[in-house]
């Protein structure tokens, strides 16, 4: 017999109530950790962006293309080290549900601009030598079981071939990015191969994109102020034919988050509301338990236990149910991160649950258990033994 045994027995006095409180706490903290992680994932990509890379897009919209001739002009701007075309391919593997991002890029320039995406040197050479070769993030390759040398058929919603024929690529290299600004679930292929596709489609009577490039990812030379380079590029195209909007990579990444409008803020509010709900629920449950334990508290005090013991035991109960439930929910959200990453590959390919978010969730769970049980516990502590035993007699 120990007081912990008494706490344990009290916990299971109302098994349904305890189970529901546990489940609600787990669900609330699961949601909190998940929603917070969505926000932190969006922020992490922006934070990890390089300071020496800038993105040039059409001033009208990200979906309006710019002429290929811009490349030479951008490269003439003082401070520009290199510029690389990025064109969205909009394809999928075998089935539309297997959607992932593909970009046509100048692979040699791209690999130089993104040293954080590590590629085996031998594979890199193979990749650059093969016109149909493609570079794939290691997580994407793992997901579909692709190996270097495999033929990968991709159907595009933009570059559609008559008869539903797929474009064929050969996997020549995989990369692994060490930073969240570039995910490991994207496919890159030769810009020249895309130009051939467009040519072939035009010959067949299809209308391929009239203009050419979605984004010019541009690297700034060391010692040059990116803001000055940005201003110079936009000034260069002030008169058209397409005015440009140039921004740092961080701002470019951030605009994808801002496309979601106030969603991150709403997610924060929802997470907060869930925590408030669980807090009041715990307070209510602990209040009910406290009222039921009044007589027991009186008995314990009559036996010689100190006034604060009964309150302390109630507090422990509250922290045990909500704490264990909350920790279960937070850890479940952490364990479910890979599944979520697959589920939201299109929107949040880099979704992750950070250790600070996990620890924050656990700390919040314990705090809610403590704070929710505090008032009922204080009430139990203050109860006059004589009064409670007389009332309960």
């Amino acid at each position, binding site marked *: *017999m*120990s*007081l912990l*045994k*008494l706490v344990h*027995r*009290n916990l299971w*006095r109302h098994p349904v109530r305890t189970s529901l409180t546990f489940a609600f706490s787990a669900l609330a903290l699961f949601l909190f950790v998940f929603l917070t992680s969505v926000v932190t994932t969006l922020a992490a990509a922006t934070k990890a962006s390089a300071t020496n890379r800038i993105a040039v897009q059409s001033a009208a919209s990200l979906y309006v293309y710019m002429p290929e001739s811009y490349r030479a002009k951008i490269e003439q701007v003082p401070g520009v080290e290199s510029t690389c075309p990025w064109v969205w391919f909009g394809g999928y593997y075998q089935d539309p549900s297997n959607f992932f991002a593909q970009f046509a890029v100048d692979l040699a320039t791209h690999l130089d601009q993104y040293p954080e995406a590590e590629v085996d040197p031998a594979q890199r050479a193979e990749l650059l030598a093969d016109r149909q070769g493609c570079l794939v993030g290691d997580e994407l390759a793992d997901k579909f079981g692709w190996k270097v040398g495999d033929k990968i058929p991709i159907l595009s919603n933009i570059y559609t071939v008559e008869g539903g024929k797929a474009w064929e690529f050969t996997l020549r290299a995989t990369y692994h990015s060490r930073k969240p600004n570039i995910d490991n679930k994207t496919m890159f292929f030769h810009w020249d191969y895309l130009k051939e596709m467009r040519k072939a489609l035009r010959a067949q009577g299809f209308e391929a994109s009239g203009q050419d490039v979605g984004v010019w990812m541009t690297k700034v030379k060391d010692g040059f102020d990116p803001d000055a380079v940005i201003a110079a590029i936009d000034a260069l195209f002030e008169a058209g034919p397409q005015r440009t909007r140039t921004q740092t990579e961080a701002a470019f990444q951030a605009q994808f988050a801002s496309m979601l409008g106030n969603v991150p803020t709403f997610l924060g509010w929802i997470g907060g509301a869930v925590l408030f709900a669980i807090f009041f629920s715990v307070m209510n449950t602990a209040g009910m338990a406290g009222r039921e334990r009044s*007589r*027991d508290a*009186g*008995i*314990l*005090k*009559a*036996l*010689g*236990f*100190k*006034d604060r013991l009964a309150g302390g035991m109630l507090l422990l109960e509250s922290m045990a149910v909500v704490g264990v439930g909350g920790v279960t929910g937070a850890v479940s959200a952490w364990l479910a991160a890979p599944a979520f990453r697959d589920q939201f590959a299109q929107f949040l390919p880099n979704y992750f649950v950070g250790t600070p978010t996990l620890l924050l969730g656990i700390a919040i769970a314990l705090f809610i258990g403590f704070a929710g049980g505090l008032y009922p516990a204080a009430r139990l502590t203050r109860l*006059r*033994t*004589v009064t409670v*035993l*007389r009332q*309960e*007699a």
Partner: protein
Amino acid sequence: MATAPDVLARMRGITKVYSRGGQEVRVLDGLDLDVGAGELLALMGPSGSGKSTILNLLGGLDRPDAGTIEVGDTEITKLSSDALAGWRARHVGFVFQAFNLIPVLTALENVELPLLLTPLGKKQRREHAEYALQLVGLTDRMDHRPKQLSGGQEQRVAIARAIATDPTMVLADEPTGDLDRASADAVLDILSRLVAEHGKTVAMVTHDPAAARRATRTLHLEKGVLVEQGTTGPA
């Protein structure tokens, strides 16, 4: 003043005032009372006469508005709340009319509960609790929870819990109030044996004349004042 030969507890000039419905009710007014060591004291009187208040004050569950209470060498009215709790754990065992057992614990665990406040180890605590249950004749019910026991058995478990720590005094508030005659007699037998065979001091509040007849001394209270005292018979 109500006196006893070998005094264990002394109450002097005790006044206790309760506030009921916004009005002050003087339950005890300058009461003097001695409780003798090894006596079975019965406190009788109508409801509201202050019997239970005396018991609560003697056991340190409540504090007087005026006056002093000494038990042995300790003036308990001067003790802090924590010190009083510690004193209560060592010197007082309570038996209540409503039994007041913890419903989620077995009979054995209920009896073991006050022993958690002693320096005894786990094994010794269990032995003490089993011995206390043996004294009240309930060794065969030690793994039962209160709901699985009759009222008389519950009260016997409560007595076992009260004596488990070998306290100086056992204070019983209407111990037979909720029991049938046979169960009440069994409980009174145990309380009498505690006094006669184990030298315990028992103070008991009761409305039951049969219980009072078991007492070595009976005090009658009316409106907080001792109006009669008599020695009835041996415990």
